Structures are given as structure tokens and as C-alpha cells.
């Protein structure tokens, strides 16, 4: 990747984070998990998904951890797929911009929100691409907490049985599920070993590093194995005041706090957050 392209992606990621931060006002959103996967989404739509392909030749990016949809919609805006003013309709019943993705928003391949579903749906799509002899790319982004769901592992078994090497599972490994560290609840490590033992072609990278993502997707292999990219990320990435905090999963901020967080994103000040933390556990 050329330096200029890398810088463009980084600039886009900052803009996507701005959209995410703004969506915490007037009802809130799952900001932590959204900020951790920004680079995964931006890279996916900029460099993996070939958007000039249509119909049965299309590439697919499925978002299985649906609560990080602000990052998806922010990416759609920056890619020109979604009118920016529609983000202002967040949580209005007049639009379909709510806490989980749905197919009323062009570009969303499938609705999600119930965890452990889209690996299966993506595997079905990948299988059909194989049946038709296509070279489509099928990517599904999952959470790490989502890996608690047995259906994910069931699907990995089946997808490997069918040699779905056109399927790439990207795990947003931000170390948290809702309001607790994964390793304090249902430990996942050693995660590469688990996927390897299930028959996958596994890579582990820094999920905020576009060059690492480029390298990982270059190493996606066609040897009959499902590709897994474990992307180590930071929940709340970009905002030191909420980064890697168990209590900053779902956040609803005031307009003033949003303003401060936008400043913090650009390194101008440290935000003072007074809104209550929202903890489900």
C-alpha cells in the first residue's frame, strides 16, 4: 500500500470515529465496540470489497457483531453509500438507523444483533459462490464475546468441511464482552490455537494497523481452509477517557460531552465525562 493510500485510510478512520461519537448523543450507542472495529470496516470496504462487482459476482461483508453498527454506518457515509444527514435520524422511527443493522439501509448485507448468526449466513453465501465457480470474497466480522456462541464453532466446522476458503472471519478481539473482560468470564485464549485446531488458516494482527490488515488479507489463502484474522483491538479506541473500560460499553453522552470527545479524538484535550456509566452486569 502506498503511503498516500495509508494516510487516506487513516483520515477516513478518524472521520468514521467522529460519526460514531456523534451517535452517542440523543439515546446513545455501543460506542466501545464501534470504535474498536473502525479500521476493520474501513479497510474492508476500501480494500477488500470490490464495489464495482454486481449481482452474483459481488463481494460480501457481513457484520455479525451488530451492535457496532455506528462504525458501519459511519463507514458507509465516508464511502458515499449513505447520505450523511441520515445519521441525524439515529433512533428515529422515521428512518431505520437504530442500534443494530438492517437491510433497509442499502449496503447492509444482512440484519444482525443476535450473536452467532452471520458466520452461518456468510458460510451459505460462500458455499453458493463456490457452487457457481465464482471468485467472490466473503468476509464476516464477529466480536470476541460472540465466540461464546456455540453456533460460531458449529459453522467453522461445517465451513471447513466444505472447504470454504473464500470465507474470511475477522474477529474484533477487543478483549471485552458487554461489561466484563472476556478472560475474566469465559476465557478465549489461546484463540489462534482454537481456530487452528478447528482447521482454519489463522493470522493474528494489530487490528488498528492498516498495513497489517493489508498484509493479512494478502495472506488469505485458497487451500481449502476458512481464513481467520484475529484482529487485536482496543475497545473505545481513539478516546483515552473511555478506552478499555468495562463500564464504557453502551454510552449515552450529552452534547457537551460529545463536543469534548471530538476534541479528545483529535488530541486536543481530555474529556470530562459526567454521564453515568451504563452497566448491564
Amino acid at each position, binding site marked *: 500500500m502506498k503511503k498516500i493510500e495509508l494516510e487516506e485510510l487513516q483520515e477516513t478512520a478518524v472521520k468514521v470515529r467522529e460519526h460514531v461519537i456523534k451517535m452517542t448523543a440523543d439515546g446513545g450507542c455501543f460506542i466501545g465496540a464501534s470504535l474498536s472495529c473502525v479500521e476493520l470496516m474501513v479497510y474492508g470496504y476500501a480494500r477488500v470489497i470490490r464495489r464495482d462487482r454486481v449481482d452474483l459476482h459481488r463481494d460480501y461483508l457481513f457484520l455479525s457483531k451488530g451492535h457496532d453498527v455506528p462504525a458501519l454506518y459511519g463507514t458507509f457515509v465516508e464511502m458515499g453509500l449513505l447520505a450523511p444527514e441520515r445519521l441525524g435520524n439515529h433512533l428515529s422511527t422515521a428512518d431505520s438507523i437504530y442500534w443494530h443493522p438492517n437491510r433497509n439501509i442499502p449496503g447492509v*448485507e444482512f440484519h444482525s444483533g443476535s450473536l452467532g*448468526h*452471520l458466520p*452461518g*449466513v456468510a458460510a451459505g453465501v460462500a458455499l453458493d459462490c463456490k457452487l457457481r465457480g465464482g471468485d467472490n470474497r466473503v468476509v464476516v466480522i464477529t466480536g470476541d464475546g460472540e465466540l461464546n456462541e456455540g453456533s460460531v464453532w458449529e459453522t467453522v466446522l461445517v465451513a471447513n468441511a466444505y472447504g470454504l476458503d473464500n470465507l474470511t472471519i475477522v474477529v474484533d478481539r477487543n478483549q471485552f464482552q458487554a461489561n466484563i473482560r472476556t478472560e475474566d468470564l469465559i476465557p478465549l485464549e489461546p484463540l489462534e490455537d482454537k481456530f487452528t485446531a478447528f482447521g482454519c488458516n489463522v493470522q493474528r494482527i494489530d487490528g488498528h494497523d492498516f498495513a497489517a490488515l493489508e498484509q493479512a488479507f494478502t495472506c488469505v489463502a485458497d487451500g481449502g481452509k476458512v481464513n481467520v484474522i484475529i484482529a487485536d483491538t482496543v475497545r473505545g479506541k481513539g478516546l483515552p477517557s473511555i478506552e478499555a473500560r468495562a463500564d464504557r460499553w453502551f454510552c449515552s453522552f450529552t452534547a457537551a460531552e460529545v463536543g469534548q470527545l471530538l476534541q479528545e479524538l483529535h488530541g486536543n484535550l481530555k474529556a470530562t465525562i459526567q454521564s453515568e456509566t451504563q452497566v448491564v452486569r
Partner: protein
Amino acid sequence: MNYEQLLIETALADERIVVMTAENRALVRNAPAALKGRFIDTGITEQTMIGMAAGLALRGRIPVVHALAPFLTMRAYEFIRTDVGIPHLPVKLSGYIPGFLSDGNGPTHQAIEDVGIMRGIPGMEVYAPADEADLVGMLPAIWSSPAPAYVRINHKAGSYVHMPYVPGKAEIVSKGRDITLLVYGFLFENALRAKGLLEAEGLSVGLINMRSLKPVDEAAIVEAARGSERLVTIEDHFQTGGLYSIVAEVLLRHRMMANVTPLSLGERWFKPGLLGQVLETEGFTPEKLVEKIMIYA
């Protein structure tokens, strides 16, 4: 023609059809050789199978999906509701050994809430053919509909020569002033015989093979309620959510009162055993049905 022959013939004529199973090949033993890549056995993974079926349907396929009815409808229920129901994809669910047809397997294998839970999914169609001939007669319409559908697969031979299937319509075998028996699926045969026994007692007996439970033939139910002293619903299903509930909903919608006797499994699983003994024990042989109905005659 049997179920498998029809399925393979249909799939060979229509590239959109893919046949899936969660490692239950009882109905589709010859499909792998005939359909090759379009036969997909996901192993014992009902949830993944449904998710993949949704993905295949996104790509324009019509998956015909097989598993034992209880595991298909319950293990994968949220996947059916979420991956198939919400986007209204044309996934066709073939539930094997529903109701009494699980005979000696025991309660783990008894799908006797399937009609209730599947019809609770918006847009999901629910069918229960009387026998294999009825099944084969109904399937072309079911598979060619754009809606998701659940079929209580009934591979038993029947003695009755059915009328052609009209989508969404019941088969009205007879009309009766005293009693009308409303039945679906495998119990049709015993209801047919019960009808003969009741007629021998001098009663005027109607018999309706419901066929399509959703959409349901409301006119057939309303007409039976108007023309008969009593309706009897006969089903190998819990009393909640099945035909008795459907009839109650239809009558209420039409602001009608009727005498309705539910012959169902109430709120319990049935005693497992050989099918004939199950029917005897649970009171669903023609004679036992007549005994229960004559109390009201």
C-alpha cells in the same frame, strides 16, 4: 411418486433448489448422487444449516431443508425466526417424523408444539399433509411460493384418494349436520375411519383435511361451524397453538360461537412405543376417537 422422487425431479428441473440436511438422510438417500453439489449435509448442526440456508437463499437459491421435526423447529428456532423469518426468505423446512410419527423415540423427539411455534413466525406458512400422496400433491405449490414454509412431512401411505390441492384451501371430504371432524396430518386416516363408524351410528358427519394450517382456510371452518352441531379438532399436538387454537381464533375473528371438542395431547408428552400402541394408549385409534366423540353425540 414419493417425496424423494418429487424432490429430485424438481431440483433437476430447477437449479435454484438446493437440498440440505442436518445429517438426516432418511428422506433423501438418493439426492447426493443425483444433485451432487446441490446436496448439502451440514452434519448435526441445525442452527448452522438454517443460517447457511438463509445465505443460500440470499443468493437466489430455494433451500429445501431436512431434519427431525423437533430439532429443526426447536433447536434452530431462533435461526428460523431471525435468519429466515425476518427477511422472509424462501427456505422450505421439511420436518421429519412430526407428532405421533416419532413413535418409540420418546419426548426428546416429539414435535407436538411445532404447529404452534412455527405459525407464530410472521409470514411462515405451515402445512400438514394427510399422507404421502397428499404431501406430493401439495409440495409443488409449497416449494414454488416465495414464502418460507414448514411442512410436517408425512411419508405414510393413505387409503383415501385426495382431491387436487388448492393453495391455502382445506380438503372438504364431507359435510355433516351433527359433527364435523377437523384434522391434519397423519391422523387424517383414523379420522376418516372414525367418520365411517360415526355414520354407522346414524350421525351425519363432516370431515375436513386441513392441509394448510397457515394460511388457514377460514371459510371451511366458518362453514363447518355454521352447518354442524359440533366441531371436533383432532391433532397430535399440544392443545395450545395447534388446530384447536386456530379454530378458536377463526371463530372469534368471525364473532361466532360453536361447540368445539379438542382431541389433542393436552399439556403432556405422549407415552412412547410402537405407533399402533401409541395410538391405542393415547386414544387416537378410530374406535377410541369415536368413544370420545360419542360422549357429546
